[in-house]
């Protein structure tokens, strides 16, 4: 399957190259839906200029990237376009290989369960065949590379593409079972933006499953593995943070990067939920609501991990979605990453109920974002409420999408244990409702 993948990569690189050369690149790199104060290329250039002058890049509250990024671009700033295209290609290839490996494991588990007669007889139509699963990795790569959101993000040179590449490598190494590399990439992803910390839980669950360590609080092997992983993770994080300190010679970057992400001082409109809320807030309550919003991102880890402890890869998908929706400065590049996973769950389509509504709403909102921005900022006949309404609708549609897939996944698992045609105790037909 290398040939179709190569073709796909060449096609996507061509599209991006054509767009780079057109006049649209300027327009796209200023859209607030595509770049945020954390990821804008303009700010990277500003930081590099300050570094060249010998001043700390973090003075002036313009630059909010980590020191490793600034040193990367110190060397490749002339080849920035190639770097971002390469990041997209790495993400796609990493996801391709990860999904191929995951599908093999899923199929193997299914084979063992069939041989052990664990599935009721009437749910044989839910069993997956190699034929349907053959093209899924290619579809995943295609969903990522040809997604308009990814293309916009790449053409705008938003560093979100680099963050996605790191997360994709983390997913690849986790699924391959390499504990050390998984910890290193996770610490790199956390170092870039704090939120991937929540991906610790699915990584641990997956690696323990792979090494046949039972997930039981009373077993020593469980805690020993957690200790090993934590040691590797914290160790690499410590090394990276120390390296950043020595690169720039000061701790300036900690408040500029992590303080910025956590305390949300910049209220530029974007597709997230924070800006409008905090623009309306009284100073007195700001800290309280800041804590509430930030805890909201991390909070879903615990219940989701408990419910999905047998299915850590689906948990990764859910966590990525939750991070993209609730983080402080989301952009469309973050959305593109979790949407790339949708073909992996394409076998759930018979249980999905709202997919048409969700796709219509997402499409309409994507069209309305620039229109309402124009009406607000340029024509003056709308105001921030209109733009926030579209933002809210967009996020509600995303939440509906994620919860729909969650419902479909759980329902399929339920059917695999209890049969496809459910009967109540008195024999009448029953339906499953997610409450």
């Amino acid at each position: 399957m290398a040939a179709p993948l190569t073709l796909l990569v060449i096609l996507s690189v061509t599209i991006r190259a054509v767009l780079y050369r057109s006049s649209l690149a300027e327009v796209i790199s200023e859209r607030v839906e595509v770049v945020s104060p954390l990821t804008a290329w303009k700010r990277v250039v500003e930081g590099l200029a300050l570094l060249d002058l010998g001043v700390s890049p973090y003075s002036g509250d313009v630059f909010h990237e980590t020191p490793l990024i600034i040193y990367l671009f110190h060397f490749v700033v002339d080849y920035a376009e190639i770097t971002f295209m390469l990041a997209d290609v790495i993400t796609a290839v990493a996801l391709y290989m990860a999904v191929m490996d995951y599908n093999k494991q899923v199929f193997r588990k299914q084979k063992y369960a069939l041989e052990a007669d664990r599935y009721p007889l009437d749910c044989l139509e839910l069993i997956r065949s190699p034929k349907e699963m053959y093209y899924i990795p290619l579809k995943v790569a295609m969903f990522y590379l040809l997604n308009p959101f990814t293309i916009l993000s790449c053409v705008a040179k938003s560093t979100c593409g680099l963050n996605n590449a790191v997360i994709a490598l983390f997913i690849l190494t986790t699924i391959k079972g390499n504990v050390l590399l998984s910890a290193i990439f996770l610490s790199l992803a956390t170092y870039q933006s704090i939120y991937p910390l929540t991906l610790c839980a699915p990584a641990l669950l997956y690696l323990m499953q792979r090494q046949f360590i039972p997930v039981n609080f009373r077993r020593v092997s469980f805690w020993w593995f957690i200790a090993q992983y934590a040691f590797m993770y914290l160790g690499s994080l410590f090394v990276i943070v120390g390296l950043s300190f020595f690169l720039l010679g000061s701790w300036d970057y900690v408040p500029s990067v992590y303080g910025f992400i956590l305390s949300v001082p910049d209220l530029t409109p974007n597709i997230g939920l924070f800006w409008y809320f905090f623009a309306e807030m009284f100073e007195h309550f700001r800290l309280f609501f800041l804590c509430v919003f930030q805890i909201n991102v991390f909070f879903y880890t615990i219940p989701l991990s408990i419910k999905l402890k047998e299915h850590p890869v689906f948990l990764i998908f859910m966590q990525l979605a939750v991070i993209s929706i609730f983080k402080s400065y989301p952009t469309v590049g973050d959305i593109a990453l979790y949407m790339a996973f949708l073909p992996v769950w394409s076998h759930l389509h018979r249980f999905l109920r709202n997919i048409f509504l969700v796709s219509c709403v997402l499409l309409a909102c994507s069209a309305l974002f620039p229109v309402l921005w124009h009406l607000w900022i340029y024509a003056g006949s709308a105001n921030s409420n209109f733009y926030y309404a579209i933002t809210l609708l967009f996020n509600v549609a995303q939440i509906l999408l994620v919860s729909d897939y969650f419902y479909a996944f759980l329902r399929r698992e339920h059917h695999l244990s209890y049969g496809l045609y459910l009967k109540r105790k008195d024999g009448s037909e029953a339906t499953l409702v997610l409450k």
Partner: protein
Amino acid sequence: MGLLSDPNRRRALISLLTRLNSPICVVCYMAGVAWFMGLAFEPFTLRTYMSENAMGSTMVEERFPAGERALTTGREFSAHKKKAGGMPVDWLVKTMQARGLEVFTQRFSRKLPFPDENKERYMVKGTNVYGILRAPRAPRTEALVLSAPCTPGDSNNQAVGLLLGLAQYFRNQIYWAKDIIFLVNEHDLIGMQAWLEGYHHTNTTGMDWSPLQGRGGSIQAALSLELSSDVITSMDLVLEGLNGQLPNLDLANLFYAFCQKIGVLCTIQGKLQRNDWDSVSGYSHSVQTMMLMVMKQASGRPWGDHGLFLRYHIEAASIKGINSFRQYKTDVTTIGRSESPTPVLLLLPHAVTLSLCLHWVLHASLRPPRRVLSVLTPLVISHLTGVALYTLPIQFQEMAVEQFPVSETEAVVLTAIGVYTAGLALPHNTHRLLSGEGTEQGWRVLKLVAVLYLAVLLGCTALINFSLGFILALTLVPVAAFVTPHVPKVLSAFILVILSPACTLLFSVFFFQELQELPVSFQEGWLLYLSVISQGILDHFLYGSLVYPLIALLVYPCWLLFWNILFWK
């Protein structure tokens, strides 16, 4: 989340909607049209009123003693204009300097993409002359603009005279808080565009202009005067600007209140406001006024020199003096008084397209469409035709002029019409190219995509230019509703062509002439239609009007998709 997760309630709602689908569509469409007509009905609208934070007209004193002198200046201007054969730059500069203004000039030049037959110009070169009256305190922070266009021939001389007279009068007042810029622009909108681009340091339309030497701070409001007679019977207020933008309604209301105060008749769309709203003739008069405004707004052209200011978020209006056969005439002095110190809450009845979407929610299969490729082909081909409609007329005008005995303007317009008609032949040919006939499932998916596309497109258009969105919705929604491959082909094809954007434009031209009480014969109407198309294309290249690219690149491909569905088999 009961509706979204409970399957029983969902099934009940779905079956209800499926059964009542056509009645709901018809009711929604009728309700939308009725609501729109209700906008002209007096009890539903608000007459012109002053909002709380507008400037009160009662707090302003109006004085202007120098009417006669303004008329004399106007006559001098006319004489010098004839002698110079264009804009009398030197005389204007000298006169403005004599009145104590800081005078500057700006040269500009532009080569139009093809000759403009209405105004007979192709290579445009001109000069704008403007004088700034500095405020005694805090100069160069904010400014107001009073402008009068310099048109060739005998028109607009009185406006320039009035402008200069006002300049003299204002110079003697000491309490101005803002700079006042008196602008005389040549070649009406092209000159105004050059001046505005120079003032705001932008260059969006590719015009050549010399930089402005003098500025007055950010412009707060602008007024453009058009006055061609010594006495007038009424003053017409023109509000419509580029891309259907309107100024703040307070500006219109202020002007209307002022006119009432000093006893001058103020008309909107050339019509007076009537009090007999409950009679049929009164209501039809309101509807006529409303439809005139809708047509003007939908065309996306600026209907006065003020239209280009709105893009820079500057509230602006144009005042036209009309001399008609009324008994009571007003002289220039009174007009001057009115210069010293507008419509409708718009609604969005899109229940129609929403009901269409619901219709397709239910009829669309719950499985994701597998035949992506069979839907993609008509989409790509329709959009390529749209791109051809956008680019070919201008590109191939030279070749067309060589091959056929037509002028460049006619070549452009006829190429556009030619490409449009050629698009109608597409479905037959693309199906021959592809694998035989389309499938039953295929056209449903294509109709789903086309209806969604139409809904999003109409929604976005209505948000930016409501009148244009409404007119497009009025004609395209019935098309979207009834077209399937199973309706009688000849009749449906005829109806589809009647309701297509090009024919809508043709009917609108005739309707507009009727509303203005200047009905035209079919020949004249057709020539007017051709000139409207050429003006639309020129407006896009000269001022950045969005109507032409919208129709060519988005609405026309959408209509072609429905045409494709009709000929699916």
